[in-house]
């Protein structure tokens, strides 16, 4: 198998880990919606934490993307 083919396969395999990140991000917003339906007054207060949690979880997805790029382009 030559290097180009192996690189493409490696990059494809590296993106499997994005499934976990997708579940995590959905979890954050699901909990936010459920929580703000129970306590609508607090929803504005907690939205800042929602954005922080989203960005931190998205970061893990992007680490996987960086690995895929590294495998593919070097």
């Amino acid at each position: 198998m030559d290097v180009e083919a192996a690189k493409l396969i490696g990059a494809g395999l590296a993106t499997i880990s994005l499934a976990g990140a997708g579940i995590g991000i959905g979890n954050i917003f699901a909990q936010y919606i459920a929580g703000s339906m129970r306590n609508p007054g607090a929803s504005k207060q907690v939205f800042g934490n929602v954005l922080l949690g989203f960005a931190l979880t998205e970061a893990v997805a992007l680490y996987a993307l960086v690995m895929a790029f590294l495998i593919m382009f070097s």
Partner: protein
Amino acid sequence: MTEKHSPLDQFTIQRIFEMKIGNIDISLTNSSLMMIAVLLILNVFLIYATKKKSVVPGRLQSIAEMSYEMIYNTTQSNLGNDGKRLFPLVYTLFMFILLCNMLGLIPYSFTVTSHIIITFALAFGVFLLATILGFVLHGHKYLRLFLPKGVPIFLIPILVPIEIVSYISRPISLAVRLAANMMAGHTIIKVFASFVVVLGIWGIAPLLFIVVLYVLETLIAFLQAYVFAVLTCLYISDSFHPEH
């Protein structure tokens, strides 16, 4: 035939104006030109917007005051009274990263923060500040950061190395988060742009999607700058109070 283009070509650094001191290359590149532009825009905007210090602010002064207030509330809520000492650093970091991200969205410009060396310089600076501040303020007791309260004795050999690794990984994650977000966003837009060219008349569909992607990219630009600022506050609040 034309040479092979890749969507990552937009991140190459090109020299605009060659300058050398001895062996050191200090040319003006597209990256440093964008940083100078960010500097000029920030300074001119902030100085001009707050010139008439009217009690009821006009539009421009409102924008400056809103950004000030947002970062001020963040530092106050994370750091308490020490937030006042930290506020200039966090505000500078936030405005610099925000404007660098935003200016990269203009077509044909260059995103400064998409290079890991630049974001790592910023993140490592914050890490050094947090560590040195912790040791200056608390001496060797700063190492209590790695040992949360109420841990059973037999868990200590497992927990402390994990905490140390997670502490060391803070600047790395801070840097990679910002650089990867910027790079991924721009790469996706470039890839969809190549679809527009290939599809001819049906290229209208990827074009509309690119418009949506630009909205997402604007949101991400703002969010990543805010997350960098918040995490800076959190890491430095850890060095003020090492016992969680």
